[in-house]
């Protein structure tokens, strides 16, 4: 019987950046070899995590445990590994990773290594190599000459590519919660409707502010509720002031934003007054048509057809935007990419420098982007519906911090916090 569980000792692991995985086999529980090995690790100043343990059912059945050992530097780590080896522990990754050449386009060889969104390394010629473009649910391909490794999506596999199979010669560096503490230390539970939102919003404002000052890029993934709730102008402010560097959205957000700009309505509702406008249900279609006639959103801006709104600000401020289509789209707008794989590829190419991602009022788009982001990119998901955030975490984007709130008051508070930061910066 195999049982998976995560058991960690109390030694603080945040300073322990060097790790090695070992296996102990045999009657490790009856013989106290397992507790002895664990004690040995902590006595020597290391920390451990039991990655996997199998307990024999019968008296003669052996058990086994895979233990990840961490230490603050390689010398300390090798000392611990040598000590536990005396008690029969063996290093699991003493061999190179196994490579099998892809035999067809668009599919991995059987038994391929399936990636997580955590920092990963592979061993080649006795040396560990970092895997680039870390992304969950991919495979790993390795350049045979340079041993450089990178994640590769199934659909991008080409015949002849060397692909990592099995788990030997691979290792994953799980992101410790403490590593996120500097950014979101207060967010001890990932999603709650009952949290003081002011503190969280202040932290998000700080991250946007710092990103603007530094080299990190902020990505906004937004749904049409931003426009429906009348928050479009707040996003415009963020874009104009340099707090948003990229926008991923669908046909709906862009359409309703343009509808509002051209007709003052969103889905036919007057955004300022909240009342229905005669023939307002036609507005979004007329908006799409007008942009299609112009050829693109950028052309519409250039021709003064589009003179305000989120998409207008994106064009004016040279903000990269990716609009992805869906089967329920009207139009769609000419900038919308309707091929799902092409969208994935474009988003993948764009996220390399993203360090912070704000997902607002969109479920499917958030999950799609969450799938692409490595675990070390901080993600904040804002939605009126708690299940959106839960879905995101359930699909592996565990680093997501959720904020359950209406979009408009959130953005208004966020902007106020940013203004406060700007003022305090200015006054110092």
């Amino acid at each position, binding site marked *: 019987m195999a049982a998976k569980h995560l058991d960690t000792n109390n030694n603080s692991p945040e300073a322990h950046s060097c790790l090695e995985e070992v296996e102990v086999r*045999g*009657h490790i529980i009856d013989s106290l*070899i397992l507790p002895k090995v664990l004690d040995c690790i902590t006595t020597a100043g290391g920390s451990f995590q039991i990655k996997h343990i199998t307990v024999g059912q019968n008296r*003669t059945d*052996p058990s086994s445990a895979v233990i990840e050992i961490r230490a603050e530097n390689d010398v300390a780590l090798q000392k611990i590994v040598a000590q536990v080896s005396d008690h029969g522990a063996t290093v699991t990754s003493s061999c190179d990773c196994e490579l099998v050449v892809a035999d067809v386009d668009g599919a991995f060889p059987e038994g391929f290594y399936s990636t997580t969104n955590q920092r990963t390394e592979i061993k080649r010629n006795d040396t560990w190599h970092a895997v680039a473009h870390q992304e969950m649910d991919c495979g790993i391909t390795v350049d045979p000459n340079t041993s450089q490794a990178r994640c590769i999506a199934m659909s991008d596999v080409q015949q002849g590519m060397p692909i990592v199979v099995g788990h030997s010669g691979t290792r994953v560096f799980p992101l410790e919660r403490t590593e996120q503490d500097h950014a979101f230390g207060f967010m001890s539970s990932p999603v709650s409707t009952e949290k003081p939102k002011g503190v969280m919003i202040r932290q998000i404002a700080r991250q946007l502010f710092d990103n603007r000052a530094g080299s990190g890029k902020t990505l906004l993934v937004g749904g049409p509720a931003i426009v429906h709730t009348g928050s479009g102008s707040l996003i415009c402010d963020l874009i104009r002031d340099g707090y948003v560097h990229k926008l991923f959205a669908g046909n709906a957000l862009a359409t309703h934003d343009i509808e509002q700009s051209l007709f003052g309505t969103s889905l036919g509702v007057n955004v300022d007054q909240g009342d229905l406008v005669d023939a307002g249900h036609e507005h979004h279609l007329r908006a799409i048509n007008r942009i299609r006639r112009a050829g693109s959103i950028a052309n519409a801006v250039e021709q003064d057809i589009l003179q305000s709104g989120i998409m207008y600000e994106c064009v004016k401020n040279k903000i990269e935007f990716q609009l992805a289509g869906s089967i329920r789209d009207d139009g769609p707008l000419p900038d919308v990419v309707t091929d799902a794989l092409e969208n994935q590829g474009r988003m993948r190419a764009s996220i390399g420098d993203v360090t912070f991602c704000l997902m607002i009022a969109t479920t499917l788009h958030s999950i799609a982007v969450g799938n692409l982001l490595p675990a070390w990119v901080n993600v904040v998901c804002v939605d009126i519906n708690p299940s959106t955030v839960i879905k995101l975490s359930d699909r592996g984007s565990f680093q997501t911090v959720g904020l359950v709130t209406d979009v408009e008051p959130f953005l208004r508070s966020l902007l106020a916090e940013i203004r406060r930061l700007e003022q305090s910066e200015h006054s110092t």
Partner: protein
Amino acid sequence: MCPPDYYGIEYEINPWMSTEKQADHAVALRQWQALRECLIEAGAGISELPPVSGLPDLVFTANAAIIYQQKAILARFKHEQRQGEEPHFRRWLANHGLQVFDTPSDFSFEGAGDALFCGETLFAGYRLRSDAGGHQQIGELLGIRVLPLELVDPYYYHLDTCFCPLVEDEAIYFPGAFDDYGRRVLAEHVSHLIPVDESEARSFACNAVVVGRTVITNSGCPLLHEQLRQAGYSPIATPLGEFVKAGGSAKCLTLRLDGEEAAHW
């Protein structure tokens, strides 16, 4: 057993050995013969391995292999001084109807010196001469439970110098040769443990040969013998001082071919 024709202290591979404290060959031979007679008198039959010149420790046949039913897992000696013994043990065991297996991978393993059955469980000493990883693989090979015990005192470099199963649930042991984990494992899995005083452990009290209820040890272990008598055993003392100079005694000079007395199988 292997006659001590070529026995002597020719190198130093444990704290007992000193080439300056040579064994008296004539006395050693008499002691070996006396042990042999004690064993026969206790009911044992003895087969002999021919001695080989240049292999002084071949006399310590306990280290040849571990025997389980008709299988023998051959030793792989830690020190090269004894590695020359391996082919002689291999040949003899194979010629006597045993299926001989090598110790898995490149682990050190010193036979019954470090692997003793008590009931269904194989207790296995490690760190000083045998490797813990090898014990686990031997357990898997034989389909038995193995409980490795770390040996922490270099004077008790083999498990048979500090632990001796008497019957399935009773054993004598010297607590000081083990760490806390080892002592806890022994206490948990052997219901009657007879502790040996350090002064007698140094006389190799634990290095006993058990034949039925007869327990044969080196002389100089009166306290243990009293405990054994009270527990219903018949202890016999026979002087083996010349072999203690090499770090061995009664048990080390024998390899039980039909399973230790305490072995369940």
